[in-house]
């Protein structure tokens, strides 16, 4: 029997396949290798796989768009950029296992992380509802296990909480998809754009449910309560991955949906509630940060607000807005990964680096690590000279340009609040009376150092070279 798929279809998913295969190699190495295999072996295999996948993926950036598997997976500038971001994030998370091991489970954890990466990459290129769901579940199922892998009680709590709430979100998403299918008789996103559908109640209901599911996954207020608890409980590398890759993949789905899959006349009316919850998230996320004592919870709340900033860029539905959203997602990726890398530098297996109390006096004990952390926190707050500053300028200008200046106003208000929370950490690191409280810090963590310094350089350079990909449209074919 002839396969309905051509070779080009399989080539287009080659980066995913490479990542998936390297996960198998990691497991195989664990099986064949001696009992006390160094944790750097699986990390090395995973990094090699990710790098090869990234190179392979980058090669298709300048090619024309291609809809593989009958439109299920779309290759183009947009999906390539998001896949690269996800691959970078996976690499940045895998290196953290260099300091925070999951004991003998490390190879398994890394393999799960790689499969999760596959799911996220699938979402980045998903061209129909089935692929979106497939990618999302692949991403999430691996993450449920990863969350529960640590020995702590909070980790199991996090895993259970994540499982239940994420499944609820998936339920919304799936029901929405069913209704959308009912409205159109097709699962392809491209078929939703028909003007005849604009007055179809099934489409409105379906798209609404779909967006609620997305809002859950993006942890927008009021669907955000799971993320601080889950981030806190999960192991540090998994939190790093969740805070960026999950968000990037979901944002890719969201952007493709609102840019390319809504009939004309529906979009602005249907999306207004989304922009309103984005505005609320910018305020509530930043307010939520104020009382946190744990870096991972801090970043969870920060992420709620940062997604609000990114949605502000998307609000106008313009190509420039999409490019600036991608710029900000990339900047956010590097600043978050950098902050997690510094936290990993200060951590042993007990993850001391995620407790903010351990940062007191760090500026006196570990000046370089403290300076890096300061830089990443300033980047999250949007102060110069960081990519966060330029990202906010670009988002503000696009919000003015597209008539969503009120979202820009919320962004300003949220940023003002957020600075207090970030500066509190900086304050603790440099305050004059904050000496002592020394604890056992890992003296040498080469991979985390490299990751932190690389993120620093990238966040700094992105301030001066605003690389925004120009060929991200069209999103569907």
């Amino acid at each position, binding site marked *: 029997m002839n396969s309905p798929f051509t070779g080009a279809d399989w080539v287009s998913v080659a980066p995913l396949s490479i990542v998936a295969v390297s996960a198998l190699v990691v497991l195989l190495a664990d099986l064949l290798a001696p009992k006390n295999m160094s944790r750097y072996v699986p990390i090395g295999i995973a990094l090699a796989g990710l790098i090869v996948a990234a190179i392979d993926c980058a090669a298709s950036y300048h090619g024309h768009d291609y809809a593989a598997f009958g439109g299920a997976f779309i290759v183009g500038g947009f999906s390539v950029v998001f896949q690269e971001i996800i691959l970078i994030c996976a690499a940045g998370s895998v290196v953290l296992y260099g300091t925070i091991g999951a004991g003998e489970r490390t190879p398994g954890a890394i393999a799960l992380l790689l499969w999760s990466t596959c799911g996220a990459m699938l979402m980045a290129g998903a061209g129909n509802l089935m692929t979106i769901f497939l990618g999302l579940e692949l991403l999430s199922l691996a993450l449920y296990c990863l969350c529960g892998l640590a020995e702590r009680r909070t980790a199991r709590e996090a895993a259970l909480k994540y499982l239940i709430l994420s499944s609820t979100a998936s339920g919304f998403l799936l029901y929405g998809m069913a209704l959308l299918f009912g409205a159109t008789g097709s699962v392809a996103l491209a078929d939703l754009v028909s003007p005849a559908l604009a007055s179809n109640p099934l489409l409105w209901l379906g798209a609404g449910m779909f967006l609620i599911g997305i809002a859950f996954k993006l942890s927008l207020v009021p669907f955000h309560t799971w993320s601080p608890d889950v981030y806190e409980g999960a192991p540090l590398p998994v939190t790093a991955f969740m805070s960026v890759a999950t968000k990037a993949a979901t944002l890719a789905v969201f952007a493709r949906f609102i840019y390319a899959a809504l009939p004309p006349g529906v979009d602005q009316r249907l999306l207004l509630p989304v922009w309103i919850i984005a505005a609320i998230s910018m305020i509530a996320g930043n307010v939520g940060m104020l009382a946190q004592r744990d870096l991972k919870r801090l970043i969870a709340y920060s992420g709620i607000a940062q997604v609000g900033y990114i949605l502000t860029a998307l609000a106008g539905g313009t190509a*420039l807005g999409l490019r600036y959203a991608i710029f900000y997602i990339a900047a956010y990726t590097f600043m978050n990964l950098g902050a997690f890398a510094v936290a990993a530098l200060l951590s042993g297996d007990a993850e001391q680096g995620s407790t903010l109390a351990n940062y007191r006096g760090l500026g006196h004990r570990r*000046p370089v690590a403290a*300076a890096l952390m300061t830089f990443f926190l*300033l980047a999250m707050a949007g*102060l*110069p*000279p960081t990519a966060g*500053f330029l990202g*906010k*300028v*670009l988002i*503000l*200008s*696009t919000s*003015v*340009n597209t008539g969503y*200046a009120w979202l*820009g*106003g919320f962004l*300003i208000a949220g*940023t*003002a609040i957020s*600075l*207090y929370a970030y*500066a509190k950490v*900086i*304050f603790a690191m*440099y*305050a*004059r009376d904050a000496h002592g409280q020394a604890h056992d810090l890992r003296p040498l963590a080469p991979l985390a150092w490299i990751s932190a310094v690389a993120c620093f350089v990238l966040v700094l350079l992105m301030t*001066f070279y*605003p690389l925004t990909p120009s060929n991200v449209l069209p999103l569907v074919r």
Partner: protein
Amino acid sequence: MLAPLLVLVPIAAGLVMLLLRSENATLAKAIGAIVAAATFVLALLVQNGSSELREFSFRWLSRPFESSFHFGVTSISIWLVLLLTVCTFCAVLATNVSRTRAFVAQLLLLEGSMLGLFLARDLLVFALFWDLMLLPVFFVLIGWGQHHATAWRYLLYNFAGGLTLLLATAAFGVLYGSTDVIGRGGVNLIGSWAPWIFAGFAFAFLVKTPVWPLHTWMPLTYADTPAPMVAVVSAVQSKAGLYGLIAIGMALMPDSLRASAMFFVVLGVISLLYGAFTALVQSDCKRVVAYSSLSHLGLIVVAIASFNPIALQGALIYMVGHGLFSAALFLILGFVESREDTRSLTRLGGLGAQNPRLAGALCIASLAALGLPGLAGFVGEIIILTGVFQAGWIWAVVLALIPIVLAAAYMLRLFQGIMNGPQVADLPVRPDLSWIEGLALAPLVLALVFVGVNPHVLTTFDTRAYNAVASIAQGTAR
């Protein structure tokens, strides 16, 4: 090419100093002073050099609006650049705090970021350095300040201003298509958005200057920051708001500034009166100078809002004059504090007998502050009052005369409280100014006298400044 060098040299020097291991205080001060002196020389070269030396431009953004890393002195900013480099030089030499190396490094970072601000010919670059210059002061406040609340109040007030500035810059860029506009003639942003954009800029400038009622961060910050840094902050960072009001508010959005002139004059006059009366009753001597600053800067706000060419010339001269005497005053108060371990006017007394040179310096600086003819403060004040009178704001001039009388009262109270009277028995007796402390004060005191007896130098050094602002003012004063 020299202009960006002027920004990069102090920032690079400051960062390198932060990384150094040596805690040798003398070495740190020597390096800091050399860098600051080098920036002074560079600034003179930039001012007198060819146009390739004066200007530097590097494209930053082409969408959604054009923006460049465009540096170069404008005829208005050159004075502030020179003032900043001199003040930094003096402040570095006057440093007498613990952890000297890190402190001097922060002074250099502050200098670099503020040079970037004054040299920026692009609004977005201006906004970048506007936020950046908060950080050195914040780090000094948490590392050397007495009260934690001060650092927070400084950062949050000024960052709020920085954010409205950022939003206004983005909106300006979108509407005008380019932010590469500072010092470019013929820009006048109008339309339904213009008042809002102007309001965003104005809020930032008024917080930074500051004027009543946005000033509450200022007395705390000035009292808590070690003297060398507060000298730079009060002398030059407070001028950033006024410079912005002239170079951005007046030059780019004259119609909006003109429409809200009454608002600015009222705020300026309230600051004038409020600052003077409050300075009269302060017991912390740094707070006396802090509130006197509020009063003096209120006068400059009135001068700018009056849209009169004479008043604007006065404002430029007074900005330099106030920079010189407030830097001198804060440095001297720092020396007093390091000798007597207190800043309380109720405790201090009789220091002049033991420290004649210190007393002489304080005498000249406080006389300049109260507007004695022959010193730098007087020239600016009288020209401003003439110009504001000519512009027709007679009630403002009449009200402004009250704080000028009060200035004599609070400045003499400050001088007498510290230097005159019987010596206080339980306060330590320490030697007079060392030569290095004298060297830190000498440029400021000499400049005060020089500008005071020869104010002509400020108007002949570069006449373009006055032509530029005069043309702006006249163009809209019709």
